[in-house]
């Protein structure tokens, strides 16, 4: 259930400017209210976008967390790619549904050229 609470925190953070201010002021204190593992808490404090994607956070939630930290779009995409390279396939959640092993494998599976999906 822990991925649920990581995403619940990010869902609430994305919606609530007051929570964003409290998160900026004291990240650990805000996160103490959520049932998180040490790994999850550390990823949210850092923030470690690649690890959060590996843990299974939905990109529709994660991209706003990256924007909150002033992470540019291309950098956001690269951090997720690096997270998969470093930590392995997505552990759970929607992207783990049929397995996800990175851009190159996925590109091959679609029979497309390996331009890396870069933009």
């Amino acid at each position, binding site marked *: 259930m822990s991925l649920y609470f990581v995403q619940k925190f990010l869902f609430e953070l994305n919606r609530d400017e007051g929570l964003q201010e409290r998160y900026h002021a004291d990240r650990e204190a805000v996160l103490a209210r959520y049932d998180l593992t040490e790994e999850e808490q550390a990823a949210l404090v850092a923030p470690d976008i690649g690890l959060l994607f590996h843990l299974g956070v939905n990109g529709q939630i994660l991209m706003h967390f990256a*924007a909150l930290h002033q992470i540019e779009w291309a950098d956001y995409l690269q951090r997720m*790619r690096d997270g998969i390279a470093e930590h392995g396939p997505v552990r759970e959640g929607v992207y783990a549904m049929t397995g996800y092993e990175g851009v190159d494998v996925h590109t091959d599976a679609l029979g497309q050229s390996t331009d890396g999906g870069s933009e």
Partner: protein
Amino acid sequence: MSLVYAGVCSHAPGITGRADQADPDVRDRFYASFHQMRADIEASGAEAIIVIAAEHFANFFMNNMPSFAIGMADSYPGPIEDSTWLGIDKFTAPGDRGLSERMITEVSQTVDVSYAEEWKFDHGIAVPLHFLTPKFDTTIIPVNINCQGPPLTPLHRAWAFGEALRRAADSVPEKIAIVGTGGISHWPATPDSGKVNEAWDRDFLDRWCRNDKDALLSYNDAEVYKDAGQGGFEIRTFITVAAAAGGATGVVHFCEPIPIFAVSCTVASYDLAAQ
């Protein structure tokens, strides 16, 4: 009959938020198609637009995820995203609580629908409205289908929902437009952002234009995920509009990949007059 327009369009946040990074030629042709859609809706005399979106954890989360939700308020703020990130200033779109209530009451006769008296528009609705009602002066009825948090709304229920929305639209004196928003194949906000499956998109749109119910409902989520990504789950909004169009056939006005927008940007509509 008071359904006067039925169409679909893309809603990706990059369409407004990363506009300066796209190929200007294809971007501007896409925008022109969006502007024509606005003109077509205005020419239809629509007094309210039902916008069926696949929202993205702006209002609904896995603590209480509805298969279907309809807004029931007199106004809706947006965008919930950072204005600079999305490229759309904060706005308040007009709603009509009474019209929503009448619609919801009729839809509920055949489809169990949640209603929401609070709703903050995310890019799923805000990006289309930026083009379709740029002054935010047309009544909006927001609708959401769960395309994000599995288990997802079954496709055949999305079809039944479209039929119910059509019946509801036809039951009110107001002229109603219905617009489905979403991507076809795409992998938004993931490492594969920018990738699309053009062959899959063409085949889907062919089924959509023919309004072939059996072909539209023959997909399953595992296949869609494999071929069209989690963004492909948003075909539910297109399928609901197909059902609402009641057998009309459609035309694709624009469909070209714009990688920095993370989707094949699409505008299409049904010819309701030919029914």
